[in-house]
């Protein structure tokens, strides 16, 4: 199947314009990152100069985990609204009367959700690193946070976890008839990849570049599979009429 990048671009532009003028989306995208900053900052500032290297590593692991919750939760706000929101405001049917393919629509919505999520995740990581360098009492914190595997994992995992969250939430949105229910379910369903990150962060698995790359590849495969699955779940007829399409 040939994807039309013009269609995807048109959807992305529309989504970004729409978000920018939505107080609730702008408010959520502003407040959530601030909330995600509080706990990692406290963890870093609590570490005394005498804290052992092992304890520092553990704390940095938890900081890293907390930072990766942001790209899982932040795009969920947008993604859960993506299809059910269009249905609620009556804009889905006109959209589906155009030559836009369902895969293009969903990809456009996913791109519009993932870009701010990744941007915010990287900004949070950079901000925590700056806090660690300036305010941390334990000198080992900043280098531990800036270690190769952590940086690589942040770069790789933030978009991949966001991707997982977005596809799961769009899938829920495509099957829901109520925005609030979709948002509640979406938030819960976007968390599973963090379980693996938690195991790495708390040294159940030893963090290494190989492990980060393997986990990233697994997540990437899952993201692509989810895009296909969610696209297949996107039933024009059911979304427009409420009745499942029965092929003759």
């Amino acid at each position, binding site marked *: 199947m040939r994807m039309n990048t013009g269609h995807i671009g*048109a959807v992305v532009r529309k989504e970004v314009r729409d978000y920018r003028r939505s107080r609730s989306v702008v408010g959520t995208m502003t407040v959530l990152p601030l909330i995600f900053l509080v706990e990692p900052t406290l963890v870093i500032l609590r570490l005394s100069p005498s804290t052992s290297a092992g304890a520092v590593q553990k704390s940095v692991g938890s900081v890293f985990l907390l930072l990766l919750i942001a790209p899982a939760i932040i795009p969920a706000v947008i993604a859960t609204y993506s299809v059910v929101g269009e249905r609620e405001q009556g804009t889905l049917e006109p959209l589906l009367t155009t030559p836009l393919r369902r895969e293009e629509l969903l990809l456009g919505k996913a791109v519009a959700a993932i870009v701010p999520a990744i941007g915010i995740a990287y900004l949070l990581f950079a901000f925590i690193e700056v806090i660690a360098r300036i305010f941390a009492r334990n000198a080992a914190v900043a280098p531990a946070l800036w270690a190769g595997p952590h940086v690589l994992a942040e770069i790789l995992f933030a978009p991949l976890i966001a991707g997982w969250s977005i596809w799961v939430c769009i899938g829920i949105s495509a099957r829901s008839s109520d925005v609030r229910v979709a948002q509640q379910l979406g938030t819960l369903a976007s968390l599973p990849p963090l379980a693996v990150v938690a195991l790495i962060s708390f040294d159940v698995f030893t963090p290494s570049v190989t492990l980060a790359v393997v986990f990233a590849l697994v997540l990437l495969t899952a993201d692509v599979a989810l895009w296909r699955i969610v696209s297949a779940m996107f039933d024009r007829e059911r979304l*427009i009429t409420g009745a499942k399409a029965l092929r003759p």
Partner: protein
Amino acid sequence: MVERVPGHRAEADRSSEPPALVVDHLTKRFGGRTAFEDVSFTVTSGEVFGFLGPNGAGKTTTVRTLGTLVAPTSGSAVVAGIPLTADNGTEIRQRISIMPENPGLYVRLTVVENLELFAGLYGLRNHGPRIDQALEAVNLTARARDACGSLSKGLRQRVGLARALLNDPAVMFLDEPTSGLDPVAAREVHDLINGLRQRGVTVFLTTHRLEEAERLCHRVAILNTTLRSVGRTDELRQSLFRRSLVVETVAPLDAPDGVFSRTAAVESWRSDGTATYMLTVADPRTAAPAVTRALVAAGADVLSISEPHHSLEDVYLKLIDEDPEAPPA
């Protein structure tokens, strides 16, 4: 679209082009519920085709089926020259446009931003002039930078029409375009559709406003789950109502049977008991002079001889009433 065909396209011109829509025994069922059944008709290119029926008759589902939004249960159709199949959905949607009953605009976006989205989805390159033309066609240029949320319902319908014009569609489906509009706004929409008609745009107009269909459409179809009738409104009147003359005299005739039965052009007659007589005739144009002469010869003082007018509403109600399963309109 706007620039395609200037001026009104003659009936002969239209009939020489391939049909814009061919629908053949099309049926759509949702589980055990039948939305419409065994529907067949053809729409000529450049025609404004009215699709009438009561609420729940299946009009919107027909539009959605022809617009590839829902799959037919059985039957076939050719839309804008392309067979209606699941594989052809994208190609069909590229060549048609549908304006749903609710125009479904992004209220936080401006009029132009809404149109830019759809121009992008129709793959229009250098879409600025096309958007300007569409806005001009619906007299909305002055409101182009306004947020759609700030527009009245009538203006939103106009934005929906502008959006439907963007891709220069081979067939434009307008689903209840004046639903919920006040008379002034409805009239504006009528004028816009009339403009489309004069430019030769093929329009498939669903409505339950009969005066709207009568005023705008070349032909109408009346649907009530099954198709009740298709044709020009005058053809439908002729097929449904026997031709007749209404004769009114100053006083009741002494021997009406002697007057009317002896007039060859009159097939039958009846009286309502006063000085008004309803005559069934084959051709009112030849019968009226003959009846006038017979009445004058009989010494009657004639007040009027006229052909009763059957509105599209009469046609519609007769057809809907004939259907025992018809839901109330």
